[in-house]
């Protein structure tokens, strides 16, 4: 039986069991790193942020079990630290618009998006689609991309995503829905035109963050 996150943390904090902490890192590495890589889209930067995330975790655990309250929520706590690191990095490069600052206008923004897309094409090879899908995710609006990453990479529930990002669960669900629909449209378009940049300019999600209209 595998030890829980809390048991691993206790082993590290109380018995200085480094292997327990290593197990903890390896257990969550794909979730945290997948999120960070999807956010910053740079493998080296994602590695740096991944290290910084766990350096901060170590520092907190060493000083006091403090801000980590346990109760099976290590991943959420770690993801909060990782997210703050990623957002700091993106803000420093001016590639991120804080979704929280846009509270209140999201219904208009989402309503502006088209709901349906081209027909399904099953002939795309899965392997090719991984790469194309990655490119499509990169082109999502930041807040949509983040929800997709948190749900699929970090495997967080929508309720946890809502808590982490400071929005209502309805907002988190809305972002996810439009993210999926937009992804599908981009995937199909890419397949049909054999190009990945053929999404119409009229779709707000394709615009750079700086060009998005804030209502």
């Amino acid at each position, binding site marked *: 039986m595998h030890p829980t996150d809390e048991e691993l943390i206790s082993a590290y904090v109380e018995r200085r069991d480094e292997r327990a902490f290593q197990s903890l890192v390896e257990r969550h590495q794909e979730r945290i790193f*997948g999120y960070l890589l999807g956010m910053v889209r740079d493998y080296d930067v994602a590695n740096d942020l991944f290290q910084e995330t766990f350096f901060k975790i170590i520092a907190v655990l060493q000083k006091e079990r403090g801000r980590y309250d346990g109760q099976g929520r290590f991943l959420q706590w770690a993801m909060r630290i990782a997210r703050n690191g990623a957002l700091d990095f993106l803000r420093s490069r001016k590639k991120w618009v804080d979704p929280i600052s846009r509270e209140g206008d999201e219904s208009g923004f989402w309503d502006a998006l088209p709901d349906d897309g081209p027909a399904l094409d099953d002939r795309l090879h899965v392997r090719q689609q991984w790469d194309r899908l990655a490119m499509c995710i990169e082109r999502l609006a930041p807040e949509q991309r983040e929800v997709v990453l948190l749900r699929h990479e970090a495997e967080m529930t929508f309720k946890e995503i809502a808590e982490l990002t400071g929005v209502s669960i309805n907002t988190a669900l809305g972002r996810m829905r439009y993210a999926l629909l937009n992804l599908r449209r981009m995937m199909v378009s890419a397949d049909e035109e054999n190009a990945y940049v053929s999404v119409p300019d009229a779709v707000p999600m394709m615009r750079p963050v700086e060009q998005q209209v804030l209502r």
Partner: protein
Amino acid sequence: MSEEKKNLLLSLYGELDSDDHRVDSRLQREAEQLRYVKFHLDARPGVRPTPESIEAIVHRAAAADSGPAGILMETRNGGLRLVKWAVRLAATMLIAAVAWIAWPKAPDPGETGSLLATVPEMAPPASTEYEPMNATVPLAIVATTEAPVVRERHITPPAAVEASPGWDDTSELLAIQRRLEMLGAMEWDEPPVPLEQLPTRIPPGVNRGVIQARDQ
């Protein structure tokens, strides 16, 4: 977002609380689209950081052990090392001392054979006459001058002891006895008086202090 679309998404991700997973016929098309994308998202392989990143984190975790608890462990180890070092040092000194004592010393050729012969000269028999001491002479000086004599008496051959018990004078013993009785008669708040200044005879009518049982 409508409740139906919300439930559709929650159902797709297995987070719908109710057991009703039926999809509204109007949302069938959207359900297919969402399911299609989710399938490909789920099929994506996970990405991992470099092994160097993991190694750096584990190294940092180990280095952080020198924090409060780590310092405690370090202190314990240091204390243990100190005790071990002290025990080793003590054992070494003990062995050295035993070796120094047990090692046969080569006597000085000039002193060989004359040690016993000089003993009588170095330790003349103590005078049996009572000599009142000068009270101004410090006791330490007296002790220093008399000490060699006491030591030499210990090495006096037994034959000499048997031949001369002259020092065993009862008059001197009586003087000491009287001095002790005077000490017993003194009060606690009286200034200290050298033993030599105490009279050897008790004047009549003086409190004799504590009377010993054999005298009662």
